[in-house]
């Protein structure tokens, strides 16, 4: 079970990023829990300055905009 957090105050891109994570996970057949983090303080604690950001198992893998599909799959599989 992978623990994925999508960091973002709730703009359109943040929602799109969350949808991308869910899609990629179901396509790859990976079991994930997706949690949205909208609290600014918590986002800052991850050291991310631009949203949306993606955290997988506690590690920040991406920040600022939508991830690329290929990269996202790689992060989910590793």
């Amino acid at each position, binding site marked *: 079970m992978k623990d994925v957090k999508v*960091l*973002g*105050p*709730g*703009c359109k*891109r*943040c929602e*799109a990023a969350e949808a*991308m994570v869910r899609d990629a996970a179901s396509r790859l057949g990976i079991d994930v829990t997706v949690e949205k983090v909208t609290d*600014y*303080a918590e*986002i*800052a*604690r*991850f*050291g*991310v*300055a*631009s*949203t949306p950001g993606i955290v997988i198992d506690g590690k*920040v893998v*991406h*920040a*600022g*905009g*939508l*991830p*690329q*599909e*290929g990269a996202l799959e790689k992060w989910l599989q590793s």
Partner: protein
Amino acid sequence: MSIEAIAARPYEQNRPPLWKWFAGLALALVAWGLAYSQLVRVSEWLVSLMPVDRTSHLGEALAFFFYDTPKVLMLLTLIVFAMGVVRSYFSPEKTRALLAGKREGVANVMAAGLGILTPFCSCSAVPLFIGFVSAGVPLGVTFSFIIAAPMVNEVALGLLFGLVGWKVALTYLGFGLGLAIVAGWVIGRLKLEGWLQDWVKQIHAGGGTFVPDERLAVDDRIRLGIEAVKDIVGRVWIWVIAGIAVGAVIHGYVPAELMARILGADAWWSVPSAVALGIPMYTNAAGVIPIVEALLGKGAALGTTLAFMMSVIALSLPEMIILRKVLTLRLIAVFVGVVGTGILAVGFLFNMLFH
């Protein structure tokens, strides 16, 4: 195709070779240039189709509208594409790493410059502010960055260059940067860290050193440019057309003497009124420039017009409401005061210099 779909396209499969990207780009640029060179002819032809006298007020307004609409949209597309590619080399996290722990002074200059180049959407303003401050970027330097980003809008800069000329564009760039540097430095000197919201002060970034691993290929960067065009031009075109319509009315109907009386360099109150008028106006930079173009064409003073433009772009109420989450009201008041004073100074100075 939506930007989401473009970003989501699997990038390992069916990747066209690089030369195709460059050939496509070159072709698009040639087509752009050819179309651009025909704009006057097309707009005059369109007006001649209308049952209006070309020299009438309406004829003038229509000619302005038919000429400026394709021109601004074409310029906008080119500028946004180029900036999309350039910005793929920058990220807020990299910028923050560059600025963290730097001494004020040089860092203010760097922050102002990076503020123009670093991409971030307005919904990121708060995380960005906190991210900078909590990672040890001095408050004044953070302000230089936060002020420069909207103040020297790269789209406004490119449009000014294309519509009004390089002198005005360059002055805008110089004074916008200068203002961001000085205002940030002043705020830093005032030692206002205590005026941040309490919860912001308490944050110490845990993994505050995240720097994205961006080894993008050239075609990825080109694709990011195209994505930026779809996103930004797709969002602001309506504002652009509204701005051009206002500009067209000014161009066709407002008498030059009236303009000189209201926005001329002689009326001392023209600069403060222009700033006061600009604050509650919230429009896109791309929509303001056609208005600026028409105002200048009618003989409005350069300083007054630039002050109006800068206050529309840099002192917008919605942005202050967003920043309210991290700054206390007192700190916002200082921010508005410093930036507003700077804009007034720019306005008066220009009216004096170009009188």
